[in-house]
């Protein structure tokens, strides 16, 4: 089986502050946590390999998307590195994968007790719903994987995030590496224990892959975005096909989920200009 891994950083064991995950204005702590992050990814790969996975594609999906310490990864995986990918955290998910992992994921915008919770762009996205379902990044990304027939098998992160994903996709195995205390503190496993738990979870997830299902949204697909400010909705409403549904809300409907996904990416890219 070929495996797709989308890896984020806020859900890594020990992470509780933006400084630890901010690659753009690197704080000394970033260098430490990027190492923990890399090791959680390699643990997931090790576990998957123990259950028979052969090909692995890792999509570095955090911040500028060039955080992984490449020389720490098994030499025979492939890596998607770098920023501004049209399908962002789930770029190139259409390559015939038998399953996917979300490693180091975090809660959606507005979730209590989810460290550093946000949905793509905290300064723009207040809430996003697809066909009425409130979406975290995991939900949105699983929808694109599902469109390509790829089921999500594993999610790792804090308890709120993991339980949120499992509520929407009960077949997904969860590895809880920390309990969030509000948005900026966590009671966490130490990195070695988290890495062991992720390795074991990954192995079990691949073994149980037969029970997993692609997560799909049925067309017509309606995207509702609530923005943080009215000025952002004002700009986003100028995207072709978008409708202003309120002072701080816009809507877009289309039959194709990839079109909707890219339109969502456009909302926060344009909204950031307001």
């Amino acid at each position, binding site marked *: 089986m070929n495996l797709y891994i989308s890896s984020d950083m806020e859900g890594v064991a020990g992470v509780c502050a933006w400084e630890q995950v901010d690659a*753009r204005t690197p704080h000394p702590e970033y260098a430490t946590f990027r190492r923990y992050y890399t090791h959680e990814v390699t643990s997931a790969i090790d576990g998957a390999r123990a259950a028979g996975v052969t090909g692995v594609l890792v999509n570095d999906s955090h911040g*500028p998307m060039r955080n992984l310490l490449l020389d720490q990864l098994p030499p025979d995986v492939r890596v998607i590195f770098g*920023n*501004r990918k*049209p399908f962002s955290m789930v770029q190139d998910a259409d390559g015939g994968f038998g399953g996917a992992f979300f490693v180091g994921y975090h809660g959606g915008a507005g979730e209590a007790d989810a460290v550093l919770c946000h949905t793509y762009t905290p300064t723009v996205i207040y809430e996003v719903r697809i066909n009425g379902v409130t979406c975290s990044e995991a939900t949105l990304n699983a929808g694109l994987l599902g469109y390509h027939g790829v089921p999500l098998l594993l999610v790792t992160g804090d308890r709120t995030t993991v339980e949120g994903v499992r509520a929407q996709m009960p077949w997904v195995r969860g590895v809880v590496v920390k309990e969030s205390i509000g948005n900026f503190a966590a009671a966490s496993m130490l990195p070695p224990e988290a890495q062991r738990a992720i390795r074991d979870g990954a192995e079990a997830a691949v073994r149980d892959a037969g029970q997993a299902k692609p997560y799909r949204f049925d067309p017509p697909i309606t995207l509702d975005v609530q923005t943080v400010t009215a000025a952002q909705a*004002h*700009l986003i*409403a*100028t*995207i*072709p*096909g*978008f409708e202003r549904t309120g002072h701080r809300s816009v809507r*877009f409907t*289309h039959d194709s989920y990839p*079109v909707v996904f*890219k*339109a969502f*990416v*456009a909302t926060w*890219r*344009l909204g*950031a*200009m*307001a």
Partner: protein
Amino acid sequence: MEGTAGVCSWKQCDPSDAHEYPIFRRYMTLEVRAAIEGARESGATGFVVNDSHWSMRNLLLDALPAAAGLRVISGAPKPWSMMQGLDAAPDAAFFTGYHAKAGDCATLSHTYSESIYSVAVNGTPCSEALLNAALAGSYGVPVVLITGDRTIVEESTRAMPWTVGVVVKDAIGFSAVNSLTPHAACEAIRAGAREAVGRVARAKPFVFDSPFELTIETVAVEHADFIELMPGFERIGGRAVRFTSTDYPTLLRAFIAATRIAAAANPIA
């Protein structure tokens, strides 16, 4: 503002400039005032002035004529950008202080954004004047006056022969001009505006034929990367995208959105 007499540098048009901008925003205001006065002398009564440059709050409001029936649109961003306010159903439109399109050998030439290398509708290369005229045209509103440098005025009056053109300067490349003085430019604009209002009955709305095809070439690949995210845009090259519609306002809005999302690609991530 770039087509105002004397303007030859971004500094004169940049609201953050503390030295030259305050002078040239006054010249811009005086040219707008001259256009209004000329139009009133020919019987125009109501006016909407849409400040359409940069931050779109350049006009010195207390230097505009204190006339009843004059409204000013200030600020940005506006959904219709340089063409906000057509819902007032005017009988005709003036374009003052306009500049040449991206790529022209003319003063501060550009088209909406410095990320745009070129833009065409139905294969016709477009300046801001032509894009905007076609929006006015789709509401039945003719453009009867254009002022600016020789390049934009001559190109626009070729496309719209009913439009009065007032050339206030000749470009010497991108950042130098051979210009009328502000006083002489205002006199010429006032006379042009007077004549333009007299031509309204013979003027025609400028329109492209439906279906409309917008093609944009961007300066860099990353600009097209972002524009392509938006529904309805098709990537036709490394630095090229296309959008089609049977509704011109939809097309122009898509273009405006494209210029804005392209700008988001400019900061290094």
